């Protein structure tokens, strides 16, 4: 379901005055511009500012240094916000109730034709050019040289939260018990290093909305979806220039 600009403009907009700056920042961080509040302020509406297909630009189709080069493709059309992914993630990776390694955002448009809402799963984008690792003063967060995963060494974390502020995807939180910042690591310690082939979230998803993949393998489904032109594939907040490894598409 594609929503045109005129449809958005035709719907009743109650203005953006009532959105807290925190909410606004949260959405802007995701590459979504807040366009207004609908339905008495209970629903926050946002449109994606990322409409350019990022994945197929010349500079992206290059030799990837990682092997395997872990990535994820998210099919928004299939997400039903059952949150089995969140539950599986929390159980697998000891995520407390006040934090998340992955979450689901909702976009709702009361006056859209047909389907009026969609759900957008988000997680660490395991960027090729991460800002978080660049700003960390102790190298507690770093890019794994073999597989490209953005990792945490909790013993080195001093809790300065620079990484959290540097992340364009709001993918980090402070884990009180670990006394360190925590984030998605594609279940590296809990699953991949033990021979499992998928992350807990992808494994738990009942609709196949999340596909875990390998960008170093031209035969891999995610690689193939990213390197084709017929169907749009995009990333969140392309303008941040971090070259994410989490891609989005629709059915």
């Amino acid at each position: 379901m594609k929503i045109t600009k005129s449809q958005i403009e035709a719907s009743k907009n109650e203005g953006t005055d009532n959105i807290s700056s925190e909410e606004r920042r949260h959405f802007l961080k995701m590459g979504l511009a807040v366009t207004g509040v609908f339905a008495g302020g209970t629903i926050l509406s946002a449109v994606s500012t990322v409409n350019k297909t990022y994945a197929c630009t010349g500079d992206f189709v290059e030799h990837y240094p990682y092997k395997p080069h872990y990535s994820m493709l998210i099919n928004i059309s299939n997400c039903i916000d059952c949150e089995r992914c969140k539950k599986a993630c929390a159980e697998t990776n000891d995520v407390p109730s006040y934090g998340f390694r992955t979450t689901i955002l909702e976009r709702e448009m009361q006056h859209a034709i047909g389907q009026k809402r969609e759900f957008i799963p988000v997680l660490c984008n395991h960027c090729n050019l991460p800002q978080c690792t660049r700003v960390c003063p102790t190298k507690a967060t770093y890019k794994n040289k073999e597989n490209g995963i953005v990792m945490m060494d909790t013993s080195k974390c001093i809790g300065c939260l620079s990484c959290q502020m540097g992340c364009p995807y709001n993918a980090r939180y402070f884990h009180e018990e670990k006394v360190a910042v925590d984030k998605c690591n594609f279940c590296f310690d809990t699953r991949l290093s033990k021979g499992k082939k998928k992350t807990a979230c992808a494994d738990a998803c009942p609709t196949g909305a999340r596909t875990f993949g390998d960008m170093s393998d031209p035969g891999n489904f995610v690689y193939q979806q990213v390197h084709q032109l017929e169907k749009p594939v995009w990333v969140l907040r392309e303008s941040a220039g971090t070259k994410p490894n989490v891609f989005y598409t629709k059915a």
Partner: protein
Amino acid sequence: MNRTKLTILALAALFVAGITGQALAEGDIIFTEPVMGVIFSHDVHVEENGMDCEECHDDLFEMEALTAQQNDDFTMQSLSEGNYCGACHDGDMAFDSDTRCASCHIGVIGYQKATGTAERSTHH
């Protein structure tokens, strides 16, 4: 009294107590199993689309909220075989249950909004 009036009266009387909570519209039912958050609205079906009670009761559904979800076959597979919502949501009479997932599925977020339970964490 005509039939529509009777219907409206019946609905008003039946849903007067509200089903699960404050923000939930009258006559709305939110299924929670097997997955959290599928909305069924009597308003949309009866008022907006003019359906009779008999189209669903009691062949497809009991007049008791959350009965269907006690059955093992309350699944997408079963819907696509023409059962439950799938009796109409076949792409012919109403949009196919294999499309527009988030029309029926309001998810955990939708459930929490509708029932006013557990505000989404604002802790980042």
